[in-house]
């Protein structure tokens, strides 16, 4: 899986492309770990190009969120396509993440938190 990385001031934006599945979720987990290790404390994962997220992907996101919080940082998620939002609903994990409809809203949340 290809993951775009962009710096928006103090906020780092990750844009994964395609499937966050049992094979690729490790790549996303690794990328989030690296960001925390390198001192990044404000991260947004932008889902606009994500086709789907399997249970392995949800585990990677929960672990990434916990790592970021342990380091005193914040993880936000934005731009969930409708099918991906449906998976968050099924997983009942909407309240476990800071989710916003747009990149701008996520960046604003991260800058305030």
């Amino acid at each position, binding site marked *: 899986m290809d993951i775009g990385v962009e710096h928006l001031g103090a906020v780092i934006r990750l844009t994964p492309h395609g499937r966050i599945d049992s094979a690729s979720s490790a790549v996303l987990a690794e990328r989030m770990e690296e960001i925390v290790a390198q001192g990044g404390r404000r991260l947004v994962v932008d889902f606009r190009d994500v086709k789907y997220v399997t249970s392995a992907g949800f585990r990677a996101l929960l672990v990434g969120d916990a790592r970021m919080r342990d380091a005193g940082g914040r993880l936000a998620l934005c731009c969930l396509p409708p*099918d991906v939002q449906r998976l968050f609903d099924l997983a009942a994990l909407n309240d476990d993440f800071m989710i916003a409809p747009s990149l701008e809203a996520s960046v604003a949340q991260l800058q305030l938190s």
Partner: protein
Amino acid sequence: MSRRLHPPAGSPVIELSMVGRLEQIPYVAERVERFGAAHGLTSRVLHDLQVSLDEVLSNIVKHAYTDAGEHRIRVRVWIVPSQVVAEVVDDGRPFDPMAALHPLRKSARERALAGGLGIRFLRSLVDDLHYERSGRTNRLVMRKALGPQLE
């Protein structure tokens, strides 16, 4: 090998065989997506089918094998007028996803971390699951209604 299900004559069908390793799963998903799209499945049906297949295949790869030998998994998908049917056959240890029980968790977060989320997705995203153990083979058949064909 138990009796095979036969797709009705003339139904579009794709038959795939993968080595039981995680990195093979996206190729199966990709092939199924192209097959489904070529035969008019909606993106929502294809989405749910691919997530379900990933959960089933990754579960087999991670938990079904008790030796280090190479195992193969066979996947067939076919389309009938009202449903898409996906059949997964593996030679791992018996596992019935419909009978899988997970201890009560305090929260959705704990369930997801403990590994109960895949089964939850599977049960929610397909309309019918049928599991059968026959000899040394597991066969899981998933059926999903096609619903309205207009997006």
